[in-house]
């Protein structure tokens, strides 16, 4: 995705721009375009060898045939036709892949909306209400706590909390609010969304916070002086100026959730379909071309979503 360099720049503008100007004066004799290439070179190389070339292989393999124990390098659309099996025959009912993507997109939308809401306000608080830099850094580090444990530990930890005999249920039963434990607390769409939000709000907070701290405070003062209410300032000044951060955070969250199968698997009790899960099942059955075909489909869909989002906000222009 061509946005990764933008993201880098957005995340640490000083890092990218600082040395850039310093070096330009020293190496004035070299043509500026050559220097630009030189600077972009390492990133391009990494991008090429660890992303583009493997991706090309995935696309090629997705059009191969296979049997139980090997890849057959002959052209075959089997990976794709098998994936869309029954999609027309079963109409109006959705086929497996259709259902899987409806579920994946639904989870993706919910997680995106909730992380955006929470992330925005956390970032807002950090940027405008916390005055000291040290506290800002300290508090944003707190947001990384969910990452301190491994996936396995987290998975085990949710059961005593949300399970049938878990803390929440026994608390609710004892307080007399409910008679029977709530089954939907765990191994449900609710628990999947909860776990994903818990994990990925951080990815919203950081870019939005980064956009917000760069908002010129005098703009807010000007809005205040012009008689704008707090809400008007928020809608007309802060949100438009925080847009790049919002879009970048959204891209993070959406790409991760679209491809996730571990958290969805664990929290959904392996009963909830996910686009990534299909790929995993295929890989485990040594059906690499089918897995590759599914990966290509996932990539195309994710790419469509992201290009739609970058339609809404031109990140390059906003930076």
């Amino acid at each position: 995705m061509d946005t990764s360099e933008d993201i880098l720049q957005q995340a640490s503008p000083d890092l990218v721009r600082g040395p850039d100007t310093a070096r330009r004066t020293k190496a004035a004799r070299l043509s500026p375009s050559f220097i630009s290439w030189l600077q972009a070179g390492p990133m391009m190389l990494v991008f090429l060898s660890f992303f583009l070339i493997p991706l090309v292989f995935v696309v090629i393999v997705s059009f191969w045939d296979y049997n139980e124990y090997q890849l057959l390098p002959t052209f075959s659309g089997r990976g794709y036709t098998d994936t869309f099996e029954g999609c027309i025959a079963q109409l109006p009912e959705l086929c497996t892949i259709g259902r899987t993507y409806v579920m994946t997109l639904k989870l993706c939308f919910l997680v995106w909306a909730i992380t955006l809401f929470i992330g925005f306000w956390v970032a807002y608080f950090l940027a405008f209400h916390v005055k000291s830099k040290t506290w800002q850094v300290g508090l944003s580090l707190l947001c990384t706590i969910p990452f301190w444990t491994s996936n396995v530990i987290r998975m085990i930890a949710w059961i005593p909390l949300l399970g049938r005999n878990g803390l929440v249920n026994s608390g609710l039963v004892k307080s007399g609010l409910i008679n029977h434990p709530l089954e939907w607390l765990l191994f449900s769409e609710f628990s999947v969304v909860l776990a994903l939000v818990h994990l990925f709000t951080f990815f919203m907070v950081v870019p939005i916070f980064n956009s917000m701290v760069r908002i010129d405070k005098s703009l807010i003062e000007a809005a205040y002086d012009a008689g704008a209410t707090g809400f008007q300032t928020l809608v007309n000044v802060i949100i438009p100026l925080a847009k790049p951060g919002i879009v970048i955070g959204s891209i993070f969250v959406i790409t991760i959730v679209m491809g996730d199968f571990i958290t969805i698997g664990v929290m959904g009790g392996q009963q909830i379909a996910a686009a990534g899960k299909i790929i995993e099942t295929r890989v485990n059955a040594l059906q690499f071309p089918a897995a590759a075909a599914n990966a290509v489909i996932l990539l195309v869909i994710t790419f469509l979503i992201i290009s739609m989002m970058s339609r809404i906000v031109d990140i390059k222009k906003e930076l």
Partner: protein
Amino acid sequence: MTETTRKKGFSRRTLLKGTAGLAGLAAGSGAITGFPYVMSAEPKVLRYLGTAVNEGDDISKQCLKDTGIKIEYITATTDDVTKRVMTQPNSFDVLDTEYFSLKKLVPSGNILALDARKIKEFGNITPVFTKGETPGGKKIGNQGTAPWKVLYLEGKDSKTFSKTATEFVTLIPTVYNADTLGIRPDLIKRPIGSWAELLNPEFKGKASILNIPSIGIMDAAMVVEATGKYKYADKGNMTKEEIDLTMKVMIEAKKAGQFRAFWKDFNESVNLMASGETVIQSMWSPAVTKVRSMGIACTFQPLKEGYRSWASGFCMSKGVSGAKLDWAYEFVNWFLSGYAGAYLNRQGYYSAVLSTAKAHMEPYEWAYWMEGKAAEKDIKAPDGSLLEKAGAVRDGGSYEDRMGGVACWNAVMDENDYMVRKWNEFIAA
């Protein structure tokens, strides 16, 4: 790369891929050939790729002590072991894998069959593998990839399984067991006797099944057959119609909310059961033991339709030759000589050569694990932790009863590709 023994024994089919990298480093060491082997200071090292069942630290330590062979474990899930044999056949020397993988491994030509004449105890391997019957003469169910169907090859480099005994053995058996449903007797409070109970609406929202397609569908088939809906010619090799029928039953159950969750690794199954999220589910023997060692009642329930069984064994990479080949045979012979067998038996698995394992076990241990008798003394795990108090009897009883009650074996179907697609449909339903 080497965790503690028990932990490893349990996580054999989990997604631990972390160890894969180390094997890459080790890959180079196999390339040193072309020199005549002399008894030099060159250490005898074998790279051992396998699921974690047999890979105990105690086993490798004892092996080093007895034979001077240093075992380097490369631990992966069953699926990942197969993947590795296909894609990096030179990254290991000795392979420890399940018999049902052979349908994929043998045609790939990446593994080397063993010469039965070089295996000292070959004649003493339990008839479960060679004849499909228990030592007491009970016939064992042959549905699925039963080991005796794929034990021999027609020739050294043949890719065809031989129906009669030859000296070319695909896998020398190491460990096997008979799996059934685990239940929480304290929560169910009535006897359970049939696989059909898994889909009994009484346990709505409290049942679970294994989310490994090739194994899960076998359990599903046991259930379908137990309910009397259909009788399979071979549960381990279904036709497309049979797969459709099986999955239809499972999808209906899933939609009705029968299942609490599906599990994929050992610890998940233990957690589901121990926390009471599920009260009935497909399970592995050591997982039941683990739940019980937490002080929670859990039974590995024998059922009238029988057990679903699995078995693992040794072969080598086709890249192994010269001195390394001799070490590999030495290692396999050592493995069958008793220490390792006793170790596996004490975990609730079964060893391939019963007589040598027996010699390495206390009589009371043998009586408990293998003869189904009440324990005379406390039963301890290989690491010394208490498994059962004196007086306990093993679920399912003796070796004869448990292995004799096997109905089918883990398998790879001819319609595997279709089955995997249907399984995805089941998950998405």
